[in-house]
């Protein structure tokens, strides 16, 4: 069972002081510890952006991949060795711009992985351009007259793709986020946790104050996460009240159940040299 010390790395943290990423990282470490996981049982996959440094700051197995491609890599790692706990981390640019196409496909495959999206509604590492979750009219370096496009709603997108676990967390509520991440990790299937992450450097609109005034907890509001219709109704709330917690949850067969070869155990544990192609060659004879 990992301890906080086990999960620490010697790398100096370069996130801005007060960045919402600290809350997400800490909540994840607490979730891993509270679930009793060993650090070698966990694989963290990160994309490109401020969040991508997570693999430098948490001592578990890791792959820092390229922009937007966390989900295909994470899906394959889980398929290769389903004994591992596979957790993907992405930013809003990663997940909802360049990697958006993979979200619905991961949802319909339903691999048993967790996908944590650090959603700060801005491009931060590239010094302040619009993000797919930036609201229409949001002024940035790349949108001096305000963003032209409607903001993507990650929750309705995930619900439409029939993701089997759809949740939103808030980086400013450590206890709630920790519990949410534990639920997501233990959920059998694809779990999206979109996390509202204040960016203290570039986003002067969606600040800690902005979220503190608006967020409320679904579980305290009588929401039934097994009801897809209710989930949609909650998912479209944003202006005055922003729900956090589990929107929707359903049990579905996971991706690996489709692969007969996995009935012999994890693929990485299977021998390579016991193949006999002489029978297969008969087809060509």
């Amino acid at each position: 069972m990992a301890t906080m010390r086990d999960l620490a790395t010697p790398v100096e943290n370069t996130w801005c002081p007060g960045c919402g990423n600290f809350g997400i990282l800490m909540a994840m470490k607490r979730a891993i510890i509270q679930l009793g996981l060993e650090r070698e049982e966990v694989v963290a996959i990160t994309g490109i952006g401020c969040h991508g440094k997570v693999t430098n700051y948490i001592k578990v197995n890791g792959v820092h991949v390229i922009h937007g491609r966390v989900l295909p890599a994470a899906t394959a790692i889980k398929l290769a060795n389903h004994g591992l706990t596979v957790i993907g981390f992405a930013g809003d640019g990663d997940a909802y711009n360049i990697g958006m196409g993979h979200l619905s496909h991961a949802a319909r495959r339903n691999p048993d992985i967790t996908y944590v999206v650090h959603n700060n509604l801005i491009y931060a590492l590239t010094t302040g351009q619009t993000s797919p979750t930036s609201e229409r009219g949001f002024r940035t370096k790349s949108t001096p007259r305000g963003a032209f496009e409607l903001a993507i709603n990650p929750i309705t997108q995930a619900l439409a793709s029939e993701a089997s676990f759809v949740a939103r967390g808030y980086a400013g509520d450590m206890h709630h986020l920790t519990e949410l991440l534990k639920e997501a990790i233990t959920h059998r299937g694809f779990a999206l946790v979109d996390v509202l992450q204040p960016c203290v450097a570039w986003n002067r609109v969606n600040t800690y104050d902005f979220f503190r005034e608006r967020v409320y907890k679904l579980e305290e509001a009588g929401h039934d996460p097994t009801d897809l219709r209710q989930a949609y109704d909650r998912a479209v709330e944003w202006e005055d009240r922003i729900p956090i917690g589990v929107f929707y949850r359903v049990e579905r067969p996971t991706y690996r159940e489709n692969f007969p070869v996995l009935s012999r155990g994890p693929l990485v544990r299977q021998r390579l040299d016991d193949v006999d192609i002489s029978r297969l060659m008969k087809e060509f004879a």
Partner: protein
Amino acid sequence: MKSIGIRDNSVSFIVGGQAGQGITRSGSLLGKALMRGGFHVFGANDYPSVIRGSHNFYVLRASDEEIHSQADTADLLLALNKETVLLHEGEVTEGGAIIYDDRTEFVVGELKRDDVGLYPVPLSSVVEELEGAPIMRNTVALGAAIALVGFDVEIMKGVISDTFAGRTGIVELNHRAIEKGFEYAREVYGDSFSCRLKPSDESPGWIMPTGNDAIALGSIQAGCRLFAAYPMTPASPILHYLAAHDVEAGMAVIQTENEIAAFNMLVGASYAGLRAMTATSGGGFCLMVEALGLAAMTETPVVLVLGQRPGPSTGMATYSAQGDLLFAIHASQGEFPRVVVAPGDVDECFYRTMEAFNLAERYQVPAIILADKYLLESHKSTGPFDAGRVGIDRGDLVVVDEWTDAGEYLRYRITESGVSPRILPGTRGATVLANSNEHTEYGYTTVDPEKVVAMGDKRFRKLDSLREEVESLEPVRAYGAPDAAVTLVGWGSTKGPALEALKMLRRRGTEARFVQVVYMEPFPAEAVGEALRGGGRFVLLEANRTAQLGKLIRLNTGFTFEHVALKYDGRPFNPGEIAARVEEVA
């Protein structure tokens, strides 16, 4: 077993008709039957022709000596529709035969040839009599063709039985269709046709795979455990074959949402410890290129099959080309070692695929198997593949339950060879960090100039031993007389027509040589230099517009070609055009 053709000891067929008439199927079934009768066979398909939208044809050649490609002309044209007769009569050898439906009517002057035999057969009537589907007309034609060349109808029926095993109704109906065609041709035409394919009593036990089949089998034998791909001609048959045989292969087979996902899946799977492969064509490879760099930077072994077809862009989706050689060698930003190997026939497809897996894993680099439509979709007979010839070598992969070495596990440990031992993520007492950023030995991101140089040098130290090993893998193969006046130099699928051209030239009294470059990266400069030493004329043979191998050879050895034979119409070289070019420069 003896084969008598019109021009040489091979008999060539063209089976042609509309898309959907089962052209490739018929042609390859005939090929299999002839192979079982002891003949070497080669078969290539062409679909759709640009002449008419939906015309397909399959070229089959059989001989009592090994053959490597189609011939220039066909001794026997099996025309399943009138269009086929009109499109292909010009390709029929003088004295050859055309089998067609006796209901086809030609107006006076429509047929241009008076030096070929016309063999109408009641294809439609037989099918109607048997109450079979119209597609069965091709089966009747096969029966007639077998009678004309004196082959054994029972062998053909055996192939049908095996192909449709378990579907008794279909087997019986097709058997009767073949018999009807066979009997009709024997009774009406007797021994009037000069070509002969008299089978031997015993089957030689050969196989007739395509390049795609051979690569798929090679990946299975190599222990590939995950195959992820997006359909793209001409590589899709690998996906189809592996998906149909996933249990026997022990493989997870995935059709992804795009090629980007496919390649990133390979990186994930390989990081976790699997051998993994994908297959695509140029357009799909374009989408994979960023992740190719990810594999290189994270030192994650992956294998990619690149089936070339004419570009740019969508180009001609169902035709062949060798235009992606320099792209494959240079694709993705930055500098990194990689393997690019170009097999030239089905045997090389099998063994070089196994080699690619070993090299990828031993040097922890991406490996590209560079092929093309002509190689991947053409059938060639050969002996059963020797499963033990190449073997599996996973290099520095340490599979242990627990990491007990002194000191922390370092994924990118600086070593003399440049290869850092891999362990499986999940190994107790260790964590494995792969990083697309430049990294420390553990894997943490760094921009420290000393560490950056040390890590870059480490990656490139692998290239030294990789290059040395490639030089030992017969990276260049030479065929024909060593002291020939003319040497052809080519790669990949041009091997087949080039070897046939050598035979053709020998019959005409000219000795020529063919040098095949198999490894493109690391480039076997030593072996190539040696093969190009000495006198004589050299002709560069490539299916592209810009002589890409020629450029590579010049870059690596300084050798410049004075003569080239470049073809870029999407069609394979015919032996005759290569032979003619040799005679021109000789």
